[in-house]
Structures are given as C-alpha cells and as structure tokens.
C-alpha cells in the first residue's frame, strides 16, 4: 500500500514534488531518531557503560533479582485472570446484541482513560489502613496495600481491557454460523466453545495477551502507589529502576531498564510477526479479517 507513491513518476499530478518528499522523509527519520531511537539506544549504552561485567553484576544483584521474580509473579497472576475475563466478556458482548451492551463495552475500555496514579489511588481508598475494607481485612491478618495482592489487583485493573477488547472486536465481526452448526449437531455449549470458538480467535487472543503482558510487566504508576516500596519485597522491576536511579546508581538502574527495554523489543517483534501472519492469511483466505492482524488502531495501544 505504501509503495504506490514512489512508483508513480514524480510529475504525476497527485504526487508531491521530489524535494518535498525527500524533506518529509527526512523530517520523519530525524524526528523518530531524536525522540524514539536515541533514547532507546541510550538505555543500552548506559547499561553497558562500565562493560558487560558491571551489567551482569547489576542484574544478578539480590534485590534486582527479587524484583524480577515479583514482576514475573504479578504478571503470571494478572494475565490469566484477564484472559479468563476476556473470554467470558467476549462471549457475552461479542456474540449477543442487547440493550446496555454499548455501555458495557465502554466500561471495558474505561481503565485506558484513567491515570495510572488514580488507578493505584482507588485501591488505597478501598484496601488501605483507613479504607473501606482495609481495617476488616487487617483483623483477619490480610494485608493488600503495600503487599503483593495490591500489586496484582492494581495490575489487573490497568491491563484487563487489552485481552477483552481484542476478543470482543474479533467475535463481533464473526458470524455465529459455525457455533450454530456445532450445536445443531448435538455438541454442548462448552464443547462448542472449546472446539469452535476458541480456535477461531486464537490469534486475537495471543495478540491481546502480548499487549497485556507488556503492560503488566512494565506498569509503573499504579503499582508505585500501592507498593509501599519495601526493598526486596514489594518492588517490581520498574519500581526497582526508579529506586536505583534516585540513588544515582545509574549503571544498575539502566541495567534493570535494559531488561524491560528488551521485553519491549520482543513485544514489538511478536506484534509485527502476528500482524504479518494475519495479513498473509487475509490475503490468502476469504478476506475475513480477524482481530490480530489488521494494523493496530491507536485505541489498542493504550
């Protein structure tokens, strides 16, 4: 789609003059370099400033390792919850039309418009020492805020739209013929879901999981508010980056950040591959476009 412009002779009536095109391409490359590429490169340059040995020592530091473990634990708790919710919500909101459906879809998107800091604040108000449920839970010895459960809940809040919206928009576009056929042949609703619906939306699901996972591992504002910053205990990797940075331990901060930047690059690669896969299937197949591969709309990025 993009090559069309260049294949036209430059004097074509609907092409810009060559010097304008060169100027615009130049501006694009300079802007993206200054604002996006150079900062990314700086993460790795700063991380390896004192050599791979210093980088490795910073990564294998006990507190950083425990931050990595906590991040993995929080993500491994939040993502499956969001997958379960996404599948259930997609069945109700994607396969059926009813009054109030639009409102529910809007609610699913709502966390994307809420400041991460506010997302953390609401859970402090609920579970904090002076919150609605905090004192009662404390009597039973359960601490949510400034502990791991709070991190998980805040992460769930921030990330649940990613899987759900991807699956909802995928199921919306599909007809229900295949499911109807399975049911009329005697399959139970459960079997129909596992054998017909789930395989048809596996790529959309994977796409949603990738975005959800990236956001869950990298979330900063919301978990920062509920974590309490107990070293080695309630610091996720992004919070560890902040602490090390504020202590002027820049090599260690950027070493930890380089792990997260690597995660971002892997996420982008997986996303690009999935989109290419979907574009190929769409070109080959019936043209039924699914959720995973159409080029992402900005809304999905949030």
């Amino acid at each position, binding site marked *: 789609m993009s090559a069309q412009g260049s294949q036209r002779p430059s004097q074509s009536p609907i092409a810009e003059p060559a010097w304008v095109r060169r100027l615009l391409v130049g501006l694009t*490359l300079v802007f993206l370099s200054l604002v996006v590429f150079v900062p990314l490169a700086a993460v790795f340059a700063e991380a390896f400033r004192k050599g791979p040995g210093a980088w490795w020592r910073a990564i294998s530091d006990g507190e950083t390792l425990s931050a990595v473990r906590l991040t993995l634990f929080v993500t491994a708790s939040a993502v499956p919850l969001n997958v379960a919710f996404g599948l259930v919500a997609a069945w109700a909101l994607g396969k059926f039309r009813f009054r109030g459906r639009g409102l529910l879809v809007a609610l699913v998107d709502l966390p994307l418009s809420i400041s991460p800091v506010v997302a953390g604040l609401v859970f402090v*108000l609920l579970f904090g020492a002076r919150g609605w449920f905090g004192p009662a839970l404390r009597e039973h010895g359960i601490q949510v805020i400034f502990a791991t459960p709070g991190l998980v809940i805040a992460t769930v809040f921030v990330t649940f739209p990613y899987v759900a919206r991807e699956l909802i928009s995928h199921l919306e576009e599909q007809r229900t013929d295949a499911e109807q056929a399975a*049911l009329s042949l005697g399959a139970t609703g459960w079997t129909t879901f596992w054998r017909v619906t789930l395989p048809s939306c596996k790529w959309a699901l994977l796409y949603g999981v990738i975005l959800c996972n990236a956001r869950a591992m990298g979330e900063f504002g919301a978990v920062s508010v509920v974590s309490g910053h107990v070293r080695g205990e309630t610091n996720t990797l992004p919070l560890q980056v902040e602490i090390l940075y504020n202590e002027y331990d820049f090599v260690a901060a950027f070493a930890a950040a380089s792990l997260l930047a690597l995660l971002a690059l892997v996420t982008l690669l997986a996303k690009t591959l999935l989109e290419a896969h979907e574009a190929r299937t769409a070109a080959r197949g019936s043209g039924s476009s699914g959720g995973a591969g159409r080029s992402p709309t*900005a809304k999905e*990025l949030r």
Partner: protein
Amino acid sequence: MLPGFGLTLGCTVTYLSLILLLPLAALCAQAASLTWAQFVETLAEPRVLAALRLSLGASALAAAIDCVFGSIVAWTLVRYDFPGRRLADALVDLPFALPTAVSGIALTAVYAPNGWIGSLLAPLGWQVAFRPAGIVLALAFIGLPFVVRTLQPAIADLERGLEEAAASLGASRTRTLVAVVAPGLLPALLTGFALAFARAVGEYGSVVFISGNMPLETEIAALLVVTKLEQYDYAGASAIAVAMLVLSFAALILVHAAQRLASRRAGSAVR
C-alpha cells in the same frame, strides 16, 4: 440462539463491578466527603492549581506537536517508500511498548544538560530536562503512537480518485492537499489529538524523571496525587484525581462530538 448468555453476562458484570465500579465508587465517595466549598478550595490551592494548569497546558502542547509531526510521519509511512520504512513503522509503537519508567530515565539521560542531545543544546542556552520543555517532550513521546496509528488507516483509505479529479480540474498539488486531503483527515487527526491528550493528562512514569518536580514550576497533577497520598491527605488526592478524570473524559467527549461534526461536513462536501 447460542447458550451461555446469562452466565457470561453475569460474570462480566460482576467482574466489572468488583474491579472497576467499586473502586471508582470509593474515589467518588472520598471526593464527596468534601463539601463543594472544600473541594473548590483544594483545587484552588496555588500548588494544585499550578500543577493542573501545567498538566493541561503541557498535554495540549504535546498533543499538538504530535499532530504536526505525527501527520508527517504517518503520511510518509503510508504514501512513500524509503529505506528503513519498516523499521520506522515499528519504532512508532515503541513509546507504547516501552515501560514508562524506562522511557522516563532514557529521555532524561539523553536530554539532560550532560546527555547526548542535551549537551548539544546547552551551548545554545536551551535546557530541556528539568524544565517544562522536558515535560512536553516526555508527553509528546508517549502520545506519538496514538496520532500516527489513528492517521495511518485514514490516509490509506483516502480516495486517490478525488485527488486525481482535483488535479485534472486544474488544482495545484498544494491546493489539493489543503482543500481535498486535509478535510478528509481532520476527523482522524482530532481523534488522535484527543487520545494523546487524554493519555498525557494522567501520565506519570515517563514524566517524573525528566520534570525535576519543583512545586509551582514543574510539578504535574499526577505527581501531586502521589504526594498528597503520601501525606495521608486522601480527600485532597481524590479531589485532584477527580479533576484529572473530568479533564481527560471531557477531552474525549468534546472531540468525539467535533469529530462527528467534521466527518459529516467532509461527507457533505464530497457529495
């Protein structure tokens, strides 16, 4: 009719109520514990007012910058072919994929007075990091994908026939771009602006490192929420949080309305 509607709808509503509506109700209840006069007083405090004004202004400016450069980036990515196009296209998503804390320290490292780019600007007397300019930079970074990814499909969907018709009727390329192409892209541009703005108003991680966090000067609203919370001023934090939510929802609703108006105009102009 497919089975399972009642069960899945019930689960969806329950989950949304517990994880979304109950917490937001707690926020509203906390803010409502203030009288209207106290609420206004909290927001009118010089430090709070300055933070809200800064968040609002910097977000609007950053979204506007994203619209200018985002348009150029989206146009070249869709219409032209050049070496590195695919890489540039992938780079556009990076601000979304990179954890905000990493973006924050990376931008600070590059644009600090001793950083790669900051040290080039310092002799010119330009300081970016630890100034409002740094906040705008971080917010423009965060908002860029929203503008570009909203514009790209709109540019790809433009009917080239219209541009050819305009050209064959004697319009110059500039005139065609202004009179035919720009109106067609306006709704998408407005959407991109609103998304970038709404995201920027609440942004925290990428800003706190580069902003310097001086009260009254470079302290953003989200940081003030955190500060109030650390002082156990729950009501104050909730009041600012509600103000931020209202701002970003208002932007989304306003632009949604403007966008419908613009697309109706564009539609009638074409026909």
